């Protein structure tokens, strides 16, 4: 073996040992998860612990005439029954929402949606609590309700929120009607209207992104334990943002923040559902403070689906203007946003419609104008980002459906129309008409790679043949080709425009190397299954040359973790991942000083080599990070403090903009309406790839949820405001049997402003997937002039399309 080969082999071995960035490291958390050894809120048991359960409204809109708790209180084992009357003296019958509204904790005079919380029973066990809820006698006087958001602002509409009836200026400006929440406008209205007035071709379509629910397998839950002697509250809960929850609890309870210990243990999925604060959290806290013993609250499946935050319910009138040869000139969108009974959207405070203004998508659209009107209805509140950055799924659905509608009107191929309008690689950083600065992208390359991989031309030829065969009566199947080319906006965000309740949306990492060279690192984020314990360690491994297996990652305990804004909107890698790299680099800088001292050379004479500093030109003279760590505690250089640790609070200079090209091939049985996904190809560009296996897993998960949303998942209400199908019998949660096989691919366009060039990926597949499925369905029927077909595309609805088109003979 010659010398160079020996050196290369040695370096390769050392690199592999680190299990750093770019390697398919197995998820370390799976050792406990796959053995059933995770510790979730409902696994926690404290001495003397009591259980709470809610009395819920059977009505969507009703006046509460009276509440009689005496029969419930008389049941043996019942300790207390809380109503609004008990919470009011504490100022806790309402709580603030992240959107600047207030939300009833327990209904006072009225209920505003079915299953709203009316009373909280606390009992010795879960069964007694549940029994007692049936013994609370509530007399209601039913009121007319609003289910259809288009009826919310009619002159004679019943007024829903009497508590803010006279407050005609809300958190986001003037309100036009007592049931109006806000109007949010962005873009150049005049210029956009001018373009539309003169354009060769315009399209206008009402695109509904229907109401659904993030439905994590673990429901929302909390366990509060108040120590009356110390005056300290410990609160375990399913919190995607534990630090924010602590601040909120402090603000609304009056307890000093340092006497509140919020702990998010293992979390079984969040998908946006576990960002907000819920009545159950507040009631378990109040219960524990009042009774002095721990009180647990665990939501059941029906409660989860019907009360804690829903997603979507955006009704988007979407317009595009273009030249006759397909150059898009302008976009105009009006959104009617159904927020339910309270505005409990979980968006950064200044963004009442989230980042809906990313709706110009991946295209160079010169002018655009967006208006969003939020309204109250008699439905559960929310509007959270379900596996997406704030309202980005809605935005991408609008542009990616609209561009297909435009392609059809122009008689152009939908892929060709996209390519014609893509923002070009040399235009980055790109300033969009609705105010964003896209950091980087190379859309043409990604699209070409995807079209080649899927064999796009051949598929269109096959489709043309199938359509002819269908017309001849030789087949009862329709073939659809769905395309989606999405641009996400993730990693909120810069302090100048992103805050939650006034707290800038930075995130944090604190890294400490122990004397023996192993590491503990803590972040302000909180994994709900994303694999943070694996991937953050990989960043540190590469940055510091310490094997990932020697690095422990901790999150979720507000006493020990640095303050951070939590995990949602694909922000962990863009923000806390950046903090991790920066903190590691601070340590590395100090390590270099220590190594120079140890090797008796000048710092500048050293160079970094995988896991060590070595003397330039003298590779045999080196100190490994492990040796440096020992020295940092044993014999630090004079004038340098001992120890080897660093903290970074990272405020991102910009968002990151992952993108991707997705293709879906679908075959639809016209007679039953059953749609089968033949192929689904997903190319994602999330910049630098930390762990390809975790990325693949995230893409599989996001696509599965996209498939669910597009093809059947919904929270539906009847006209009386009764929530329909709020159980897994009806709510479509696909199993492995229904889920299509996913083909994944990638390009790499690093973020120019992120320390390691990474962009976030967990939500891209959802954002890109929903319109891809819907486009496939719409494309299947397009040659029959079906018009836009609304989601969800479950079998009976597609059968109805066939009925409408006279396809059933």
């Amino acid at each position, binding site marked *: 073996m010659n010398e160079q080969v020996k050196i290369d082999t040695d370096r390769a071995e050392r690199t592999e040992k680190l299990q750093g960035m770019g390697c398919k490291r197995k998820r370390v958390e799976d050792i406990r998860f796959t053995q059933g050894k995770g510790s979730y809120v409902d696994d926690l048991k404290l001495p003397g612990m009591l259980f709470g359960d809610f009395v819920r409204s059977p009505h969507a809109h009703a006046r509460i005439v009276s509440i009689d708790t005496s029969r419930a209180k008389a049941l043996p084992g019942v300790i207390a029954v809380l109503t609004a009357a008990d919470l009011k003296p504490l100022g806790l019958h309402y709580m603030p929402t992240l959107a600047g509204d207030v939300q009833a904790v327990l209904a006072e005079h009225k209920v505003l949606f079915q299953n709203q919380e009316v009373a909280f029973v606390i009992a010795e066990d879960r069964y007694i609590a549940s029994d007692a809820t049936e013994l609370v006698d509530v007399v209601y006087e039913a009121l007319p309700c609003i289910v259809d958001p288009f009826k919310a602002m009619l002159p004679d509409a019943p007024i829903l929120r009497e508590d803010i009836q006279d407050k005609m200026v809300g958190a986001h400006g003037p309100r036009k009607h007592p049931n109006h929440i806000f109007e949010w406008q962005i873009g150049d209205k005049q210029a956009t209207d001018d373009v539309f007035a003169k354009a060769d071709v315009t399209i206008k379509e009402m695109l509904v992104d229907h109401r659904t629910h993030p439905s994590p397998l673990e429901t929302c839950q909390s366990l509060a334990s108040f120590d009356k002697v110390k005056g300290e509250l410990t609160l375990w809960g399913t919190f995607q943002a534990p630090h924010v929850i602590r601040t909120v609890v402090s603000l609304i309870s009056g307890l000093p923040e340092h006497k509140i210990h919020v702990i998010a243990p293992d979390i079984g999925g969040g998908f946006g559902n576990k960002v907000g604060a819920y009545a159950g959290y507040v009631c378990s806290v109040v219960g524990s403070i009042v009774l002095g013993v721990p009180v647990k609250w665990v939501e059941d499946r029906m409660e989860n689906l019907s009360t804690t935050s829903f997603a979507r319910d955006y009704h988007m009138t979407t317009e595009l203007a273009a030249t006759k040869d397909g150059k898009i000139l302008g976009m105009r969108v009006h959104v009617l946003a159904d927020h339910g009974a309270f505005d409990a959207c979980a968006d950064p405070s200044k963004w009442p419609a989230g980042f809906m203004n990313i709706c110009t998508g991946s295209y160079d659209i010169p002018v655009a104008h967006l208006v969003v009107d939020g309204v109250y209805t008699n439905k559960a509140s929310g509007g959270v980002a379900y596996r997406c950055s704030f309202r980005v799924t809605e935005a991408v659905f609008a542009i990616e459906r609209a561009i297909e509608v435009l392609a059809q009107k122009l008689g152009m191929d939908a892929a060709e129309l996209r390519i014609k309008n893509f923002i070009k690689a040399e235009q980055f950083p790109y300033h969009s008409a609705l105010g964003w600065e896209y950091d980087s992208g190379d859309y043409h390359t990604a699209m070409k790679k995807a079209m080649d991989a899927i064999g796009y031309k051949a598929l269109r030829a096959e489709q043309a043949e199938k359509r002819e065969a269908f017309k001849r009566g030789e087949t009862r199947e329709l073939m659809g080709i769905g395309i989606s080319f999405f641009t996400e906006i993730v990693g909120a965000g810069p302090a100048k425009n992103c805050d939650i309740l006034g707290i800038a949306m930075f995130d944090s990492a604190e890294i400490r190397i122990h004397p023996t060279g192993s590491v503990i690192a803590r972040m302000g984020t909180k994994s709900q299954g994303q694999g943070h314990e694996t991937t953050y360690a990989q960043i540190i491994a590469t940055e510091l040359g310490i094997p990932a297996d020697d690095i422990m990652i901790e999150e979720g305990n507000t006493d020990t973790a640095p303050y951070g804004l939590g995990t949602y909107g694909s922000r962990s890698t863009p923000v806390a991942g950046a903090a991790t790299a920066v903190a590691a680099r601070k340590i590395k800088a100090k390590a270099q000083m220590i190594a120079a001292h140890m090797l008796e050379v000048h710092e500048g004479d050293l160079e970094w080599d995988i896991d060590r500093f070595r003397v330039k030109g003298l590779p045999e003279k080196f100190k490994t990070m492990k040796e440096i760590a020992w020295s940092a505690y044993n014999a630090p250089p004079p004038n340098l403090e001992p120890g080897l640790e660093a903290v970074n609070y990272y405020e991102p200079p910009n968002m990151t903009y992952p993108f991707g090209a997705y293709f879906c091939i679908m075959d639809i049985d016209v007679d039953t309406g059953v749609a089968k996904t033949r192929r689904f190809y997903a190319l994602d560009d999330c910049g630098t790839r930390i762990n390809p296996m975790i990325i693949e897993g995230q893409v599989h998960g996001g696509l599965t949820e996209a498939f669910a949303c597009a093809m059947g998942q919904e929270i539906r209400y009847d006209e009386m405001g009764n929530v329909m199908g709020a159980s897994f019998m009806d709510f479509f949660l696909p*199993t492995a049997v229904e889920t299509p096989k996913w083909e994944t691919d990638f390009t790499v366009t690093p973020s120019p402003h992120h320390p390691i060039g990474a962009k976030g990926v967990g939500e891209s597949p959802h954002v890109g997937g929903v319109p891809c499925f819907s486009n496939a369905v719409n494309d299947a029927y397009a040659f029959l002039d079906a018009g836009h077909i609304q989601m969800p595309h479950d079998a009976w609805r597609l059968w109805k399309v066939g009925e409408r088109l006279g396809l059933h003979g």
Partner: protein
Amino acid sequence: MIPGTFEYHRPTTVESAVALLMQLGEDARPLAGGHSLIPLMKTRLAAPEHLVDLAAIEGLRRIEVVGDDVIIGAMTTQHSVIASALLAELVPILRETALVIADPQIRYKGTIGGNCANGDPGNDMPALMQCLGASYQLTGTGGSRQVPARDFYLGAYETALEPGEIVTEIRIPVPPAGHGYGYEKLKRKVGDYATAAAAVVITMAGGTCISASIGLTNVSETPLWASDSAGILVGSTLDAATVNAAVAAAEAITNPASDMRGPSEYRTKMAGIMLRRALDRARARATV
């Protein structure tokens, strides 16, 4: 999703089970696999004060041939039905149907007797039993009686069972050798009840259908035995016009509820489509 309070009983003989049920009256429910009853209890749509678990009773899990019939003990699990070589040979449509019930975990617990006795129109076995001309042995404190599956179902969750009676066995006449069969079920996902489903058994001779029986699942308050529809098929070559007429006759007797699976008219049409497809398969399988 927390059930009410109940007493749990675990008798070891049929006699003691029915005596208990008789004594406890309307507040008691027999428990077989539990996969229909327990979800109802969790949502408190059912709140029995006593559960009489039949799991410890010997002799209710068996599959055997007696004369021209197959006898299946009521506590035989769906999994055992699927695994039985005897059933696969003699009544293969049982296996085909059991395989589209729920998922493997549930089929390890769920029983054929429970599926038949509960009176849930969503269950798959009742329509199949009507199609096959099966009868149920009902046992009470006064002894046992046989009731044909076609007479057993009176309404949603309403059956011919008298207070204190339980289904102890199912008796299925073995269909003739060479018969064709098919169970076709449309569902939204694994574990779902049918949007609509059809069971078909036919025999063919010289290209002519000489006997036919059809059962329809979950398109009315009870399972449906589509005798008129089947009657149209008999004597025909299963030509398109005859099949269309049979499908129309089957659709005519359905009365499905509109639910999250789709509106009533859709589910009616799907009953027709499922019948068409089950019949196609049955014809392909029949020895002509």
